[in-house]
């Protein structure tokens, strides 16, 4: 199984809502990532978890809160988002989290904030 599964595929939320994005992988990878991708732009790294510990936070606003319950699961909790946060949110995984490993991406959650 070389899949990274993300749910939901689409999400529309208001600025006062709280929602969560979920990501799961069963490849035995110990590193998981959240990327944000705006239309016609490259993916931008948000967070990296390595061995279930947060190892990189790219100065992401606190309205985005990551959580890694175990090495197979990654969540992104969303609260009080702004319309400019509308984007494709991609989860990825790799073996251990070093930058010489290839990333396996999920199909993403297309988020619209109204």
């Amino acid at each position, binding site marked *: 199984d070389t899949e990274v599964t993300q749910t939901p595929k689409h999400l529309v939320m208001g600025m006062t809502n709280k929602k969560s994005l979920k990501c799961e992988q069963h490849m035995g990878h110990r590193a998981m990532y959240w990327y944000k991708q705006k239309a016609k*732009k*490259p993916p931008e790294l948000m967070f*990296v978890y390595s061995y279930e510990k947060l190892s*990189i936070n790219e100065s992401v606003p606190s309205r985005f809160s990551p959580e890694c319950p175990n090495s197979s699961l990654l969540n992104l909790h969303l609260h009080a988002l702004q319309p400019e946060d509308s984007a494709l949110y991609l989860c990825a995984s790799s073996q251990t989290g*070093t*930058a*010489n490993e*290839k*990333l396996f*991406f999920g199909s993403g959650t297309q988020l619209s904030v109204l």
Partner: protein
Amino acid sequence: GQQVMQIPQYQHVQEGEDFTTYCNSSTTLSNIQWYKQRPGGHPVFLIQLVKSGEVKKQKRLTFQFGEAKKNSSLHITATQTTDVGTYFCAGPPGAQKLVFGQGTRLTINP
């Protein structure tokens, strides 16, 4: 911080023509990776280059890593409609993260 610059931003070709995208880094890279993202899809890993001057081929795709390990290219011979998408290079400025180039969006006239 480190930047990975990629050109061109867009490329439109006739089916059967060749295509090349170039990637340049401001610093030496330990490795460079290439990804393809189909329209409406997610990035998919194509290849990783590690050695100075390395050349790798995948069918009609040829990947090169420069001698100074600061630049790379992807060349597609005789493009097909299945090659449509955005091609990203990605290099690591640090031990744990990849920085993606801006991408080259390839469209093909059948």
